[in-house]
């Protein structure tokens, strides 16, 4: 998209009126355009004012306790990959791109991604490659996205945060007989994680994830949590 066109998307972005690809592009643009960030701050205030124009019936009293107990459970849970209840299904399966957009959207508000701009750009390249193929994960909610050249990104939802001292590690098995190649680490800090793989994923390869000690290891020692075969 041309530079002058992307500036014009601020209002639509503030209203959540962009499609997934436009949204990713605009968020990428926001990182480098202070003018759009300033403008967005004002327009978001105005857009959010629309929320106040709605008639507001009281939510069911159970909603409050559901939210607070889920918060409590999440903090207490250290068992990796325990599926959470009461999650809408839309973050799974075919909604991978939307989940990616949502996750990047959180990034916009947060500073967790500072210093990882290049890495993130690479992930966006993979996700927005129209020729990329995506495969459903076996054992977790999410997808593996692989471009024609073998560059790959893992999108995974609803993983528990890695316990203290541990990290999730991604592995690429080029063939079932090859030694697995370490292909990246992540902590599952977001509702949806997007992980750029550091190893190419050739056709027929399998990508798997284990839980390992902080800093990662050369060969998997943890049990296989989930995988995808291309």
């Amino acid at each position, binding site marked *: 998209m041309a530079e002058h066109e992307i500036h*014009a*998307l601020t*209002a*639509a972005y*503030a*209203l*959540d*009126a*962009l*499609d997934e690809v*436009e949204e990713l592009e605009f968020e990428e643009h926001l990182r480098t355009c202070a003018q759009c*960030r300033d403008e967005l*701050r*004002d*327009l*978001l*205030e*105005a*857009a*959010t*004012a*629309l*929320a*106040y*124009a*709605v*008639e*507001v*019936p*009281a*939510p*069911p009293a159970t*909603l*409050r*306790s*559901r*939210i*607070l107990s*889920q*918060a*409590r459970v*999440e*903090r207490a849970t250290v068992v990796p990959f325990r599926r959470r209840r*009461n*999650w*809408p299904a*839309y973050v799974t399966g075919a*909604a991978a791109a*939307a989940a990616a957009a*949502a996750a990047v*959207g*959180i990034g*916009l*508000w*947060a*500073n*967790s991604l500072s210093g990882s701009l290049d890495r993130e750009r690479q992930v966006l390249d993979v996700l927005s490659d129209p020729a990329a193929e995506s495969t459903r994960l076996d054992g977790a909610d999410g997808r593996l996205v692989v471009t024609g050249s073998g560059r790959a990104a893992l999108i995974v939802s609803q993983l528990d945060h890695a316990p203290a001292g541990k990290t999730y590690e991604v592995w690429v098995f080029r063939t079932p007989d090859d030694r697995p190649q370490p292909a990246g680490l992540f902590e599952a*800090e*977001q*509702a949806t994680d997007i992980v750029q793989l550091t190893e190419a994923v050739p056709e027929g390869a399998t990508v798997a994830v284990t839980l390992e000690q902080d800093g990662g290891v050369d060969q998997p020692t943890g049990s296989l949590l989930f995988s995808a075969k291309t």
Partner: protein
Amino acid sequence: MSIAAVLAFPNRSSEREMPVPRDLAHLSDEALVALVGHGEEVALAELYDRFGRLAYGLALRILRDPALAEDAVQEAFMTLWRSAGRFLPERAKASTWILTLVHRRAVDLVRREERRRGEPLEGTDGRTDDPAEDVVWLRFERERVQAALRALPDPQREALELAYYGGFSQSELADRLGQPLGTIKSRMFAGLSRLRELLTDAESERDPWQNTRSTH
């Protein structure tokens, strides 16, 4: 927690269900988000008490389905719970962030529920079940924003309402309204800018209400 609250709840345990003391009521939304970032459950509860009702009303307006609206609100608050520690206050007010999280979740959901979007936007507005429960500051804000909306030119208001409450993307809006995409973009931009001006002009009138915000 204040001394008074500690004394009032000597056996307080995070495992037990009990009313959350309102000793955080004096804190700003931003301070509460910062506390949530440190895992303070009472701060999450306080934010829910301030914005839960508004969040649910917004989600219900977009989704028209109480169960889906609850899911959207719950997930938005869980996102808040997980990412509050990384919130950047210079990017937006905390209240704007929270309602944006809710809006985004609701729009994601409604775009997957195609059948709902064919329905007219009017007619399924949430009704206040119990007028006595209607909260004064919310009613005041509602009237203020509705008045500002009415002051917009029709095409601008239509674009804002279809996008924000209907969950339509700009391209879908262009199709639906039979207008070029550029026209839709201009209407959204002009509409939001004008809305902001109208609300800012009226800002001075709302000071008396600023310290009485609570939805419960």
